């Protein structure tokens, strides 16, 4: 009975040095920071904030489980509190990082050749980037919904033919229109595991489409950003 037990209410936070900032568009950037031994499963998120403040926000981990650094993909939200201040940071500076958490992970008990469809809006692509880089040989198709083609963040990280860029405002993508329209026209079947990540309107609509296509809710996993 007197065995040592772990104590909750201790959210481990630490200052991590910024190693690199890579700007992908005017508003979106990849923040690479020291890993400091943090362990995580692809799909989990960390809470990150500027070093001098008391506010943090959740960000999915963008880098791979085996990388010796951590990366997050951040879009600056106009009039937001945390994302604009993260954008102002420079390499050599620091961010506050809480330990990784979350359940938006791949079930390791599923067969190796399990087919996955990843559906992202905007920076919702981040956990999928981590899935793909962490697990070579993953059998997936990634649908990425953005407004303009320049938001195809690090598209060359994905194997040819597996990444479908859906652009709603121009025709520079593989498909002109929303991911929902693409999914309606190109059903992937009921034995696939679907992972949805991004804004809740997209996720809501995709749920409806998948339900119409006969997909069981057990096969649908969602991570809502906002």
């Amino acid at each position, binding site marked *: 009975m007197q065995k040592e*037990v772990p104590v909750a209410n201790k959210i481990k936070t630490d200052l991590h040095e910024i190693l690199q900032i890579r700007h992908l568009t005017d508003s979106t950037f990849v923040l690479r920071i020291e890993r400091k031994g943090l362990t995580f499963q692809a799909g989990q998120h960390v809470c990150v904030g500027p070093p001098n403040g008391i506010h943090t926000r959740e960000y999915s981990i963008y880098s791979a489980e085996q990388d010796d650094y951590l990366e997050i993909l951040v879009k600056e939200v106009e009039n937001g509190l945390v994302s604009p201040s993260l954008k102002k940071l420079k390499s050599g500076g620091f961010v*506050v990082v809480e330990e990784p958490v*979350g359940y938006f992970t791949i079930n390791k008990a599923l067969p190796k050749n399990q087919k996955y469809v990843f559906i992202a809006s905007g920076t919702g692509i981040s956990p999928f980037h981590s899935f793909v880089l962490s697990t070579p040989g993953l059998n997936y198709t990634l649908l990425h919904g953005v407004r303009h083609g320049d938001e195809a963040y690090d598209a060359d990280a994905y194997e040819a033919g597996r990444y479908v860029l859906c652009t709603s405002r121009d025709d520079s993508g593989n498909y002109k229109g929303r991911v929902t329209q693409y999914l309606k026209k190109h059903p992937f079947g009921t034995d696939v595991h679907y992972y949805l990540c991004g804004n*809740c309107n997209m996720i*809501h609509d995709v749920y409806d489409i998948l339900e119409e296509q006969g997909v069981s809710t057990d096969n649908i996993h*969602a991570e809502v950003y906002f």
Partner: protein
Amino acid sequence: MKRKIGFKTLGCRLNQFETDALASRFTRMGYEVVDNSKDTDVFVVNTCTVTNQSDQKSRYVVNHALTHGHIGMLIITGCMANHHKDQLEQRYPNAYVVDNQQKSAIPQLVEAHFKKEIVPSNQSQGGVFSYAPAAETFHTRSMVKIQDGCDNFCTFCIIPKVRGRAVSRPPQAILENIKQVLDYGYKEVVITGVNISRYNYEGLSFSALLRQILAIDRDFRLRISSIEPDSFDDDFFELMKHPKLMPHLHLCLQSASESILLKMRRMYTYKLYKTMVEKLRKLNPLFNITTDLIVGFPGETEDDFQASLKAVGDLQLGHVHTFKYSKREDTRAARMSDTMPEPLKTQRSELVRAAALKAKIAYRRQFIGIKQTVLIDTLNAVYAKGYSEYYIPVKIKQSVPKNTLLKVHIYGLETEGNDPCLLGEISA
């Protein structure tokens, strides 16, 4: 009477600024703010740790408050809380030690403390899983904690910030604890935690733990307290058939609108919830499902609300805790813009309450004419009262000692009040 909060600040300007910001939040919340600990309900020490001397000063302030009779809530925050959390928690077991990153959540922590939603994580020995056996008070039902903290990050909830990361208690300690309370004479054990369906101790899942608990070779009733409907495996439903496991779950729904569930970042859909209820009722058509519902969440349209209202009847819920959504600072929902006006929230919550009472009466009526096993926990001059296996209150107009398990024939249902009891008589 106004609650009184005292602040003492050490160190830098930033600390002072943060104390001022906190103090003005508490003033807005209706607290009287003072700069010492005298007669306060809450005393906050915003510490500094730049030098050894500042450490000493910080400790002095805390000790001074305690030696001068401070018995209210004690919060130690600031840089010393970050650097010496373990030491401080050991030395001041009744204090909340709050890191700088969580400082802004102090108002929510205080609210949660007064609502008895939380206690200091380190209160008494044994950390969050401590259990003070209540042999003398001799209740009939013993709570055994299996888990603490939550990593779900629902947008309305402050718990992940104030309670911390999910941790699970080792199964051996849980099993020993249960045997111990059974030795004290408890006949019913309730397993509790902040998010118990996420129990996971070195790969041992909630269902696997449940299986081990049910295998304890003793005669007792097992209940599961409030649970999130988001990670049940087939084994869980299989175990629900076990005679020791009582046919009641408080399965938190929060809303029956799919889009509101997404905005809340709940980890299930209403469709999935309905399937779970169907599975449980297939095992036992009388299975008692009770729930929590939040009304007036930001962006809740009339259709969203109607979905929740309809669910109350459709799911034949045995009881509904209805909450009007209230903003908790530092949560994601607090930053949502389309908030609902208070009168509309009130109106919606009244409608849910009325529907819930109707559903509860309809649900309870089904037990008339049926035999129930009741664990008596109250005795007065007029009646004895206890809960059936379905967690429905039953009154008997006979004198029966507390902590007795009785077979009771149900012959009626009270007609008054929000929680009408079944009426029964001891059956042969």
